[in-house]
């Protein structure tokens, strides 16, 4: 019903848990196809540190790195994020609809008789 690809979901949510990685994704959302050094430039950390974050993002399928001539470009890859969001949305719908039905049951039915 709402369970699929648990390892991929773990990697996506694990990638998103870090604020630097969220900021890297936000940067690419504004300007896709940046080179690694362009992407890393505003962050006050070493290039290897940024690249470790990019490894995690790439491992989760959230970005792809492509060589373009002499540059390596980073691009957002939408599918894993969309999968994670729709997975969460399914749970939100499960509970939202359950609670709607709970309200309908309690507000329409007379109180249950307690058994003696």
């Amino acid at each position, binding site marked *: 019903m709402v369970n699929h690809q648990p390892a991929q*979901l773990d990697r996506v949510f694990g990638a998103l*848990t870090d604020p630097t990685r969220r900021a890297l994704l936000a940067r690419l959302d504004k300007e896709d196809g940046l080179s690694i050094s362009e992407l890393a430039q505003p962050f006050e950390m070493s290039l290897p540190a940024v*690249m470790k974050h990019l*490894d995690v993002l790439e491992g989760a399928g959230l970005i792809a790195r492509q060589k373009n001539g002499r540059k390596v470009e980073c691009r957002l890859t939408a599918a894993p994020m969309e999968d994670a969001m729709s997975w969460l949305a399914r749970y939100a719908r499960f*509970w939202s609809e359950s609670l709607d039905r709970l309200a309908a*049951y*309690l507000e329409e039915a007379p109180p249950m008789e307690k058994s003696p």
Partner: protein
Amino acid sequence: MSCMPSVTIVRRIKAPPSRVFEAWTQPEALMRWFGPHRTRVESAEVDARPGGGFTVRLLEDNGDRHQVSGTYTEFDPERLLVFTWAWVSTPERESRVMVTFRPVPEGTEVTLIHDRFVDPVSANNHRRGWTESFERLGEAFTEADTA
């Protein structure tokens, strides 16, 4: 700073907390509402006490069946219910549901939070064989990138 996913739903119901709590913990009542649209409860077993638990079998209109079980880690009548949540198909994936029942003038405000979906160990485990390959690849590209 950690930021793990969760789902929060709030509803105000025109019934007192005692009836709302009862609807969550008595199988005959649970069968009348539990589950999303186009689904009904085929059976519900509830051991309604702290440390007790439940098993619910769901049948979708399309014929798909699902079974979920949990253990009550908090059982505070008319106030709080906290339970684990695991589908029978993936018993090792255990998440958590917390339900609070708050009296309000019109009846009860129910707040439900479902979280702990993600296994923090595997979510933070970046040590996989291919990570090293990516690092070597990254180093090679860095030389080209900064040239």
